[in-house]
């Protein structure tokens, strides 16, 4: 496309031009700067480099205008690569194999009032342009401060599962490829969606049980199975967002106990042998996990847990100041990484030299060497107002 639309010139700055030492300077640079082509829109690589992550900006002061920031953690000069709309308590998913991002959002015809529309939008990872939409019926999409496990993929990424809360609980099954809603599974008493096996999911229930559902080819429930008492919500509650290592979900409790779940089969089951992330001096009263995304994993399966020395009842969202690295095979802590500030979310890149990405409450994004814990760089508060989740595609 050439610039063929109206453009207008102005004499505004001509006096400045005339006052400048043009003659002398032009001698050093005989040719003027080249003309630049317009219009021009940046395109991203179809496959994002392994230093790139997606950071969810909850945008507290305008929740209706939330965003997903595409961030190059290796680039302190221009870390922000683009924004994807994530409106009104949205959830976002990345399907790297398809080169697609999915957002599950809610809209009103008059911003804050009027007709409500819930929809999944399909975005192209290279252009960040929308390429499809699936309207969700019933105006029931769960609106929460963003948790990853309210919107998940199953059936090899062909389908998506969306949590509903009215406060009646259910899960909507969507065929992403066919761009249509398949159906809805009632899920009274259970929350969040942890994909299981080839086509199904598990949820954590209010009575401490784990409930697994398998889906048939039409997206209806084919079978279900409950495993009782997988957690003690009163005394040893598990944060709802686990670290995923293949089909193993590693959860951490408010007190720092690690519990694995095997999601490879049609029925999710707890792995035997929970263990502690350990303890340390200096707690006031004690070290506990704290933040919004408090546990994550690297490609080798090591776990990273965001820890606060101010741990007590109610401290679990206050953020942390260290990351403790734990080897779940050895059930032992292998490293303590001191952070630059009060941090709410962590993730580890899949680079050949993996990096720990830490989102501070201030909005600053800090990068550490995952193996040594050494501070590498800060990106500053340059990508999001309220970064609360970090996705590594």
């Amino acid at each position: 496309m050439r610039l063929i639309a109206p453009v207008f010139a102005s004499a505004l700055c001509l006096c400045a031009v005339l006052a400048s030492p043009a003659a002398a300077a032009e001698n050093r640079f005989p040719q003027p700067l080249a003309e630049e082509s317009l219009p021009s829109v940046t395109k991203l690589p179809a496959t994002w480099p392994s230093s790139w992550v997606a950071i969810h900006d909850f945008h507290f002061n305008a929740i209706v205008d939330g965003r997903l920031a595409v961030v190059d953690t290796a680039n302190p000069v221009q870390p922000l690569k683009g924004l994807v709309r994530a409106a009104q308590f949205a959830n976002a998913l990345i399907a790297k194999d398809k080169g697609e991002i999915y957002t599950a959002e809610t809209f009103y015809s008059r911003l804050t009032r009027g007709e409500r529309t819930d929809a999944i939008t399909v975005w192209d990872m290279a252009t960040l342009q929308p390429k499809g939409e699936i309207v969700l019926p019933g105006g029931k999409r769960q609106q929460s401060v963003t948790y990853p496990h309210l919107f998940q993929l199953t059936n090899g990424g062909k389908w998506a599962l969306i949590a509903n809360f009215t406060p009646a609980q259910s899960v909507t099954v969507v065929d992403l490829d066919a761009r249509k809603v398949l159906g809805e599974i009632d899920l009274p008493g259970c929350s969040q969606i942890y994909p299981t096996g080839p086509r199904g999911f598990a949820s954590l229930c209010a009575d401490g049980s784990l409930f697994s559902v398998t889906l048939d080819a039409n997206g209806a429930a084919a079978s279900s199975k409950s495993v009782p008492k997988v957690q003690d919500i009163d005394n040893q509650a598990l944060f709802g967002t686990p670290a995923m290592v293949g089909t193993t979900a590693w959860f951490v409790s408010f007190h720092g106990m690690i519990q694995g779940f095997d999601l490879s089969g049609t029925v999710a089951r707890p792995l035997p042998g929970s263990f502690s992330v350990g303890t340390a001096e200096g707690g006031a009263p004690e070290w506990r996990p704290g933040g919004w995304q408090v546990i994550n994993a690297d490609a080798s399966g090591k776990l990273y847990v965001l820890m606060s020395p101010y741990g007590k009842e109610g401290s679990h969202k206050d953020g942390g100041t260290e990351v403790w690295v734990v080897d779940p095979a050895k059930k032992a802590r292998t490293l303590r990484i001191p952070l630059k500030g009060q941090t709410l979310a962590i993730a580890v890149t899949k680079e050949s030299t993996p990096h720990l990405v830490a989102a501070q409450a201030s909005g600053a994004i800090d990068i550490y060497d995952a193996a040594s814990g050494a501070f590498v760089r800060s990106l500053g508060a340059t990508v999001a107002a309220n970064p609360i989740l970090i996705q590594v595609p």
Partner: protein
Amino acid sequence: MARFDKLTENLARGIARGTSRRSLLAWLGAGMTGAASIPLLPVARAATPAPEAPHGPHGPSAARPPIVSGLEQDPGDQSSCDYWRYCAIDGFLCSCCGGSVNTCPPGTEMSPITWIGTCTNPADGRAYVISYNDCCGVSSCGQCLCNRNEGDRPQARPQSNNDYNWCLGSESSIYNCSVAAVIGVALPAAK
């Protein structure tokens, strides 16, 4: 999918007030579901990692003058996250948004369904049943953001989780702020 009973409990004000610890435990133990939660918003954007201000910097207005009830029996600053009724609040305080500790700002609608917490009044030592209601239909107030999580539990137990947007039964689900109203006295119970 009939494993769980559909438990959309209707607990009237009197029931909530009169609930003893034993009956509460029984109720929770029954796997009560389809339930409620405190309003919303997590991780307040706190300025420091120290425990002095763990619940958020009170929006851009940290230095605002106190909002007081004038009653010796209801002490504290209603624009502060530390006010006694806010023991489990999560969101913008309506006291800073055109409402009050127990009324929504004009232009909003109060969420008709709500979560109930129990907070201790330091003046009279009583435990009060507090109704946390969201005010809905106007965008984020942006003032006095607070997040206190004493007793908060993961979304697996909705009635104990404060990350839901509780603008559910309202005409619009757009969230503006949250109130904390006294709706009764909790009955004391032996431990």
